[in-house]
């Protein structure tokens, strides 16, 4: 089968890092959303970034993908800095946001085409590339339908195809399977594993479905209250917490309290005090 994303030599330096994050911090006023985190993602790896609501996952993704500037710390994506080489970095990744980001009033094909033009994909290969990717996510026969007629799962598939159109080296997936039925979820992960295995695409994902992370991710980092509380393979995390599945390991590491996404300043204060007392 023809590779979906052609990336040449990536397999040869599998062991080097494609994402490096050192002492990354983001503050919103007094509130520390991301607190001095460091981690690496290797070329060709599927890396899962897990954490309860409001833990700092999306803030971290936003900093990695150039839309938010860090308060301090260093990030490199494929050797380039998202703060200093914005456009270079933007070409290296594709992203599927947590919320839909398609234009509902345009057709599926137009959404793909507009993306191709924005990313400067060579006009000569653009049409063939769009067809290949839309066939891959099984939407080619619906190419002329307006996106507003699509179901949630179809929109997600289109977003994945779109995110791959400009040959990214890294694909960011921010809770890609939220609200989808098990069939569609299963399909999506099949696509993603296929891209990863065949083409060496690096995947950085967040999800709340622990069994999905356990199944697909090579390595996992768990973030809570802006800090990384553990990282390693699923097996390592389970061993570390003496648990038999990732969900238990996750609950063990992050506690059983429910979280509020947009916590009030009082909540921030409370949790900060709790952390100081070591009462996790």
């Amino acid at each position, binding site marked *: 089968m023809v590779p979906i994303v052609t990336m040449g030599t990536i397999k040869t330096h599998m062991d080097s890092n494609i994402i490096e994050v050192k002492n990354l911090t983001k503050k919103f006023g007094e509130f520390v959303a991301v607190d001095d985190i460091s981690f690496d993602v290797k070329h060709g790896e599927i890396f899962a970034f897990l954490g309860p609501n409001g833990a700092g996952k999306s803030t971290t993704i936003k900093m990695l993908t150039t839309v938010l500037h860090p308060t301090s710390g260093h990030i490199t994506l494929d050797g380039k800095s998202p703060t200093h080489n914005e*456009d270079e970095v933007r070409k290296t990744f594709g992203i599927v946001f947590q919320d839909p*980001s*398609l234009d*509902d009033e345009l057709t599926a094909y137009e959404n793909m085409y507009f*993306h191709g033009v*924005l990313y400067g994909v060579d006009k000569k290969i653009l049409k063939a590339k769009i067809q290949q990717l839309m066939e891959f996510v099984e939407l080619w026969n619906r190419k002329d339908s307006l996106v507003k007629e699509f179901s949630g799962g179809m929109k997600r598939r289109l977003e994945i195809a779109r995110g791959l159109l400009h040959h990214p080296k890294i694909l960011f997936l921010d809770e890609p399977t939220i609200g989808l039925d098990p069939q569609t979820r299963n399909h999506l992960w099949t696509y993603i594993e296929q891209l990863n295995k065949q083409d060496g695409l690096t995947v950085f994902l967040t999800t709340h479905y622990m069994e999905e992370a356990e199944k697909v991710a090579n390595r996992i980092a768990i973030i809570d209250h802006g800090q990384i509380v553990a990282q390693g393979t699923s097996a390592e995390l389970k061993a570390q917490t003496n648990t038999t599945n990732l969900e238990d390991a996750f609950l063990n590491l992050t506690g059983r309290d429910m979280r509020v996404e947009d916590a009030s300043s009082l909540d921030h204060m409370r949790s900060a005090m709790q952390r100081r007392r070591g009462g996790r």
Partner: protein
Amino acid sequence: MSTIYIMWLRQIKRYLRSKSRIIGSLGQPILYLFALGYGLGQVFASAGQGNYIQFLAPGIIAMSVLFTSMFNGVEMIWDRQFGFLKETMVAPVSRFNIMFGRVLGGATVATMQGLLVFVLSFAAGFRLHIHHAFWLLLLGLVFTFLIALLFTTLGTAIASMLTDFQGFQLIMSFVVMPTYFLSGAIFPLTNLPKVMSIITKIDPLTYGVDGLRGTLIAANHFPLHLDVLILVVLSLILLALGSYLFSLIEI
């Protein structure tokens, strides 16, 4: 260049696909043309001001361009809420080009809307002079586009500062409606009370309406080159301000 084009194209496609929006936004100008035109026509004529429909039509064209372009600018809030803005924000292209393409698209759409109202005004009894010069009509089109450009940019600049629809009604009440009513779109600028005269001179739409009146019925209050100059300079200032505000957007 291709970024500007694709963002422009997007606005055009969206406009042409929303038939209900096109037809819906013609309702108001038609109502104004007929209700005001025939309601106040007698008073206007007996005050020695001539045919009110002739006077009113350029004002109503300017009004529909104002409404459409402000709406197109402010529509960016929808993009932010429904996510498409994010797609453009992570693309490796300059934010100015994204904003400028969007503004040009919105302005083109508003110009088309203005042309539709121009055609409809004939149904209300508006007539061009039989020897009307063609270049004046073209200049009228330029004025229509300048009004559209100015207010699409203003709408986009305002939308860059808003994150939800809550502010939309505020913009309608405190920006769009005053701009329309205080522009001389529905009344002559001569013999106004002092305060009113000053306010109309501050209102940018005044110069757009005046330009259209000059090119369509040869009844401008200010010199046409002054109208063009003011509209162009204001558009450029707003474009600079708007692209600055747009560059600050975080998603």
